[in-house]
């Protein structure tokens, strides 16, 4: 059998466009996931505040305990039963963002709880409110510790974004499948798609490594 990458070259602009959509979906979901992650991570800091803690826990339990694909289908195929019809792209971003937020919230919580208790005590002893101490003292230190696990999470998000192709979104995988449906060159096209994903994930990993180093030099880490 001979490999024929002709269809890949002939349709490279479609693949590039698909890659761009993948980056857009992932990027938007990333922003949403970070916001949700920070919010829910803070909600779950103190088990004594029962209502907040319970709200956060229900979210994390449900999202981490069910398949992402099912969550996406619930948004895209389920919500229309209530008359809520969301555009596919929006559903993809929402689904991925909510999913990633659950994992990111645990990263946020873990990083904050890893900061020595004395830091909060010193800040409060100066007269800072809990919120001010969190913003000025705890979070700047915690964020540096969040970066390595967040890097893993971002990379996972890029790969998980392939599922949105099932919501009719023309992402990288979807564009690849369209090319296959005409050329029947599954192996070559999927290989090309896989390589582009590899490029995206590694570029992200590299960028985060640079960021981490910069923060270290900037003195945010001892």
């Amino acid at each position, binding site marked *: 059998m001979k490999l024929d990458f002709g269809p890949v070259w002939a349709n490279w602009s479609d693949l590039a466009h698909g890659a761009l959509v993948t980056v857009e979906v992932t990027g938007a979901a990333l922003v949403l996931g970070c916001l949700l992650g920070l919010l829910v991570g803070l909600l779950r800091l103190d088990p004594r505040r029962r209502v907040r803690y319970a709200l956060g826990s229900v979210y994390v339990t449900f999202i981490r305990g069910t398949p992402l694909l099912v969550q996406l289908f619930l948004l895209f195929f389920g919500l229309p039963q209530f008359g809520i019809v969301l555009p596919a792209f929006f559903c993809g971003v929402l689904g991925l963002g909510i999913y990633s937020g659950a994992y990111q919230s645990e990263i946020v919580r873990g990083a904050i709880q890893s900061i020595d208790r004395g*830091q909060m005590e*010193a800040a*409060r*002893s*100066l*007269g*800072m409110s809990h919120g001010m101490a969190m913003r000025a003292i705890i979070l700047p*230190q915690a964020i540096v510790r969040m970066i390595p696990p967040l890097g893993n999470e971002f990379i996972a998000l890029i790969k998980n974004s392939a599922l949105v192709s099932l919501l009719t979104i023309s992402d990288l995988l979807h564009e690849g499948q369209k090319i296959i449906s005409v050329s029947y060159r599954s192996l070559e096209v999927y290989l090309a798609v896989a390589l582009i994903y590899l490029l995206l994930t590694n570029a992200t990993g590299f960028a985060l490594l640079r960021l981490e180093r910069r923060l270290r030099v900037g*003195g945010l880490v001892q």
Partner: protein
Amino acid sequence: MSGNAQGPVLAVSNLSKSYGPTRVLADVDLSVQPSQVVVVIGPSGSGKTTLLRCCNGLEVADRGRIEVCGTTLFSDGRLLRDSELNALRTRVGMVFQSFNLFPHLTVLQNVTIGPRRIRRKAPSEAVEQARALLHKVGLADKADALPGTLSGGQKQRVAIARALAMEPQLMLFDEPTSALDPELVGEVLQVMKALARDGMTMLLVTHEMNFAREVADVVVVMDHGRTVESGPPSTIFSAPSQARTRAFLQAVIER
């Protein structure tokens, strides 16, 4: 600012606290008058640190009463409301055994952050004040250093400057030299002596008996959550009335 200008800066009465079945404070009474230096000594586990931490609300007692600068910090098992507690804490400086400097901020920023964020002081004014304080604790040349690059003694002196930047009416010291290498203890004690000489009101927990003898106006001996006795250092160190005080001092001096 305080309710009665002549009254004590700190008044603790009948303070009790238990962790489960363990009693850490049992009906403790203590008062600190303006410009007084009160030193609490006693074996480890005697409740000294808990007592000190109760005085700025880091720990909450079970029963009793604490008045700080004329404000009731704690009574009837309840702590002051959070917003008022924050305001009161700006008038009470705290120095920890483990320094607790903010590692992501420079020495100067550690000292200015309180005045800037809480007092809303202008940056130039806060920096000027911080430089003066750093000069006072002998660290003017370390303003731009990060805490991680300092020795323990230097860290503790920065921590003292950070607390002083809020212009407190009372300073609490929780074993400020216990985490230091022996050769670094002196520089921190010197700063504290100067502070006492300037008339700062101080409550401190320490194992430095010479410092207590030299600087304290009142020495309080604690054991098992109770105050065993208290009095001027000359009495406590030379002619203690309680057997437990004698036993403790003997153990410390023989060390």
